[in-house]
């Protein structure tokens, strides 16, 4: 049985582990060690990291259904915020490094290219999640409303994986794996809800 305290204690280590890749890529980017197309590489790595973290937050909820891992849910907020952190870096790389703040082009790109549209909406939906992540906000909104807002993580995950899927030219294995995991996690939630004892009565 892992206690809340166990998980809380692991937080500083996790924090450094999840933060580290971004520092490493930034360092490699600045020193010219990110391959021959560093902007593309940076954007890909940041985006993939964000998608993985989003999936991990969904997994945490599922894992917390297993009795001994019940308290793992205390890690979810930090990882969710890190997902937002990586999405922000990914998006700013696209805007600043890839397109040099050419806003006219970027707006056209977001409207015209489905995969960018998916990614952009996914980013927008993450903003309310990140900004309501404090205990204080949960109190102010009330748990019910807060929870409703946080259901946005489902469209976020689906859109983010579609963003990846559409972007790949030929070998779709990797995005399909991520989509598959997301679908399984969602199916598990639906199944749980359907088989739950009727609390509402």
């Amino acid at each position: 049985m892992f206690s809340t305290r166990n998980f809380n204690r692991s937080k500083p280590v996790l924090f450094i582990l999840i933060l580290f890749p971004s520092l490493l890529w930034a360092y490699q980017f600045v020193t010219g060690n990110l391959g021959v197309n560093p902007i593309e590489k940076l954007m890909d790595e940041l985006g993939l990291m964000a998608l993985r973290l989003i999936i991990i937050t969904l997994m945490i909820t599922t894992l917390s259904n297993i009795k001994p891992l019940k308290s793992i849910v205390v890690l979810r907020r930090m990882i969710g915020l890190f997902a937002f952190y990586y999405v922000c870096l990914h998006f700013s790389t696209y805007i600043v490094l890839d397109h040099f703040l050419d806003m006219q082009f970027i707006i056209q790109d977001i409207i015209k290219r489905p995969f960018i549209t998916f990614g952009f909406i996914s980013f927008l939906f993450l903003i309310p999640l990140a900004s309501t992540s404090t205990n204080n906000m949960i109190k102010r909104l009330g748990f019910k409303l807060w929870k409703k807002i946080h259901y946005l993580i489902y469209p976020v995950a689906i859109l983010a994986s579609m963003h990846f899927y559409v972007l790949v030219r030929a070998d779709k294995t990797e995005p399909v794996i991520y989509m598959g995991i997301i679908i399984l996690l969602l199916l598990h939630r639906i199944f749980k809800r359907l088989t739950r004892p009727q609390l509402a009565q």
Partner: protein
Amino acid sequence: MKILGSEITPYKTYLNRRKFIKGSLASAMVATVTSSAFANHDSDLSIYTKNLNENDKLNSYEEITTYNNFYEFGTHKKHPHLNSGNFKPRPWTIKIDGLVKKPQTFDLEKILSNVTIEDRVYRLRCVEAWSMVIPWQGFQLSELIKMAEPLSSAKYLQFVTVFRPEEMPGQQKRTIIWPYREGLRMDEAMNPLTILATGLYGHEMPNQNGAPIRLVVPWKYGFKSIKSIVEIRFLDTQPETSWETLAPWEYGFYANVNPNVNHPRWSQGTERRIGEFKRRETLMFNGYEEEVAHLYKDLDLTKFY
């Protein structure tokens, strides 16, 4: 035009030069194992740079050989460099068939002894909106076409890449339908810009760049420049090509570089030149408008993309 009329080197001298380069490479590597093993072509750059447009700069050997689209070795850009070590580009033959006087199989060495190897510095524009400037060595495709003696009914050429899943791990997975196929119209194939390349930077063609012989059609997106060619068919109808078969709404038979016709998933208006920070404007026909625009004067390029 700044790409032609460059060093015309007979194949034998060319081989000697290559031997020399190899020799100096070996000694360079003994001296400093950690420094770039490719320093040797840097000492020799003037051969290539004099053929450059003023706005262009050669990409390095390292850039050209570590960032490739060659799905036969895997779908990531670094895969061809990492996974092509077991590929054996010699001995090599090219089968010529279809509408020719006499279908036959040429030994690559025999072809090479009948042609003039020259340097051609070309821009390469990938359909994914990145580009490079590459110093190729090769010969005009028209020379091989003459050797093949096509019938007058031959209007198109189809090219086929080798299929060796045991040496090309990417072929063990059906990402695209193997073997890779490409095609050109006869007049495109006969254009003096179209070459069969057998080397780059004075080296034999590296495996990851399409050893031992590949097509280079500089005014078309990179995927038209098929690698490791084993067969050329002369046909009277437009041949089927790999990317067009996979996604006809995204990739056409012509695939001319055209900043005004976007790929459905991204803009073709700009490109990232590998090694540069800011994007560049993409040029019509990749900057070879003067040489090739006449080929398409009766063609609606938005329809025949």
